């Protein structure tokens, strides 16, 4: 808040006390001015923040020859050739294949994360058993652990199991609740649900499994949706995982395939590179527009990383 705002706020206070009649109109006017300034400043920030994305959208319609000569927003000679070129794919693999690979990995990751995280979260939040404190602390500890410390042994392990160049190393961990963020998020959510209902169900003879499936799962739907969206987006964006584990181009998910475009065509075919970058980003942008409420609220309540 600026100095001016607070000055006005203070004078507002005094004016209301001392001379209510004329101050009223002036206050309204000042408030309007403040709101306009507020709006303009935020619009300016929006413009700066969203410019790279808008630039990307327009750049996909620029012929490759325009890059380096026309840094502006609008293409001089708009063309959709880039899209046609990109659809052919690269290195003998059609573009849809990379999309399908990414989709398969992301969907399996969502299923695995929801299944394993919800189970673990229920145990941490609602079951009283020996060792729950230590295990919970260990789970929280993994939140802060740089995962680079485990990628080397994990790679060696998957290599010994001859699972390199399959999707197992990318998907299996999701079924084992390794993303502690989601376990934590769901635990917090379950803790906010009053216990009365499970107590009542217990009286009716329901066991933990029954309570979990019929009472808790329906009630934690918002947390599950948030986890699902974030898992999808993070998996879709993940670069290091596939870079390590997937070697065959026909198995590449989009981010690694993008690198292929980027490496082979950066000098000659910038148009195709930006077009495929935009296409890769498109599902996430759509997701974002549709689910932004869940995403932003999920971050606000649980402090998820971006």
């Amino acid at each position, binding site marked *: *808040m600026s100095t001016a*705002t607070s000055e006005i*706020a203070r004078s507002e*206070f005094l004016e209301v006390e001392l001379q209510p009649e004329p101050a009223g109109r002036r206050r309204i006017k000042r408030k309007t001015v403040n709101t306009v300034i*507020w709006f303009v400043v*935020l619009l300016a*920030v929006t413009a700066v923040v*969203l410019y*790279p*994305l808008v*630039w*990307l959208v327009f*750049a996909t319609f620029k012929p490759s020859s325009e*890059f*380096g000569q026309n*840094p502006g927003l609008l293409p001089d000679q708009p063309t959709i050739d880039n899209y046609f070129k990109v659809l052919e794919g690269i290195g003998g693999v059609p573009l849809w294949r990379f999309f399908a690979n990414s989709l398969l990995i992301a969907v399996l990751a969502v299923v695995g994360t929801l*299944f*394993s995280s919800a189970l*673990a979260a*229920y*145990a941490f939040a609602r*079951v009283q*058993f020996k060792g729950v404190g230590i*295990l919970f602390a260990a789970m929280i500890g993994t939140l*802060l652990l*740089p995962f*680079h*410390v*485990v*990628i080397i*042994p*994990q790679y*060696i392990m998957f290599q010994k199991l001859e699972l390199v160049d399959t999707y197992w190393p990318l998907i299996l*961990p999701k079924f*084992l*609740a390794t993303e502690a963020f989601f376990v934590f998020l769901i635990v917090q959510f379950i803790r906010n649900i009053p216990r009365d209902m499970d*107590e009542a169900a217990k*009286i009716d*003879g329901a*066991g*933990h499994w029954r309570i979990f499936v019929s009472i808790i799962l329906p009630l934690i739907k918002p947390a599950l949706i948030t986890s699902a969206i974030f898992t999808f*987006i993070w998996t879709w964006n993940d*670069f290091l995982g596939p870079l390590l584990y997937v070697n065959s181009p026909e198995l590449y998910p989009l*981010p690694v395939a*993008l*690198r292929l475009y980027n*490496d082979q065509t*950066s000098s000659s075919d*910038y148009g195709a590179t*930006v077009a495929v970058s935009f296409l*890769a*980003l498109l599902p*996430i942008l759509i997701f974002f527009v549709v689910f932004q409420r869940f995403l*932003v609220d999920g*971050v*606000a309540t649980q*402090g*998820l*990383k*971006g």
Partner: protein
Amino acid sequence: MTVSTTLTRAIVTADESGTRRPGRRGPDVPARAGIKARNRRETATGYTFLLPWIIGFVGLTLGPMLYSLYLAFTKYNLFTEPKWIGFDNFTRMFTEDPVYIQSVQITLVYVLVGTPIKLAAALAVAMLLNYRDRGSAFFRSSFYAPSLIGASVSVAIVWRAMFSTDGPVDNTLSFFGIEIGGWVGNVAMVLPMMILLAVWQFGAPMVIFLAGLKQIPKELYEAAEVDGAGPVRKFRSVTFPMLSSVIFFNLLLELINAFQVFASAYIISNGSGGPAGMTNFYTVYLYKRGFADLQMGYAAAMAWVLVIVVAIIAALLFKTQKSWVHYAGENR
């Protein structure tokens, strides 16, 4: 509450009476046995629910951590057996590897310069958004979008194009008379460019700040105003202490995240870490040592140094939080 607990216990005990061993007498004994059985059952259920997580934790986190700790003291190329070399990896890192030292330096600059700027931007914008409710939802979402996609390969490619020689950023700046002459290939400017990419993703901490700001009671500001507090004083005496736990949380999270930047640096430099090693961030170098040069022991040692650094930073932050972090309901 008490009634239902008593009821539950009664019912559970009755339920377990079927499994009660014969020969026990007295009203007390079977009840206690029932609770014991119940506890055992609870424990069994707990571990059943937790089974996937436990397998994951032991098999994919704890086990690998111990193994990488062992590898850190070995020379290992994936094909021959690991060879124990003691602290050689660590001494080599700090005494014979200038690339490592440079990697540490640029990573520290990136973390220590980028994180405060990012958090300051996040807090400033959050305070701006908190000024008015109507219409702020749109801005909140727009500012959050980059955080969601910031680490993606697509964004790295866009960033490279935007900051290339004669790219949009260069051209805009030269319009104002500032000649940079390209950022991507420029040894002096590529690190600031990476920091800008990080700052661009201020949306995630901003949303968390905003949620924190909304929790501050308006009366505190009104009281401060009555006492004649200006904006600076209000920030120092109301906003900062009331928000300190959120600041602490964001700071911890962003510092740890910043140390782990990888994809954008890797893509922007085409995997080279260039120009002149200026995008050879810690994790990029770790990846190159481990998976390009197959020096798994050295990479494991690097990873452990990172863990220790992160642990020290977290410990320091937790230690200093007493002096500046204020939790609600706590006496001062």
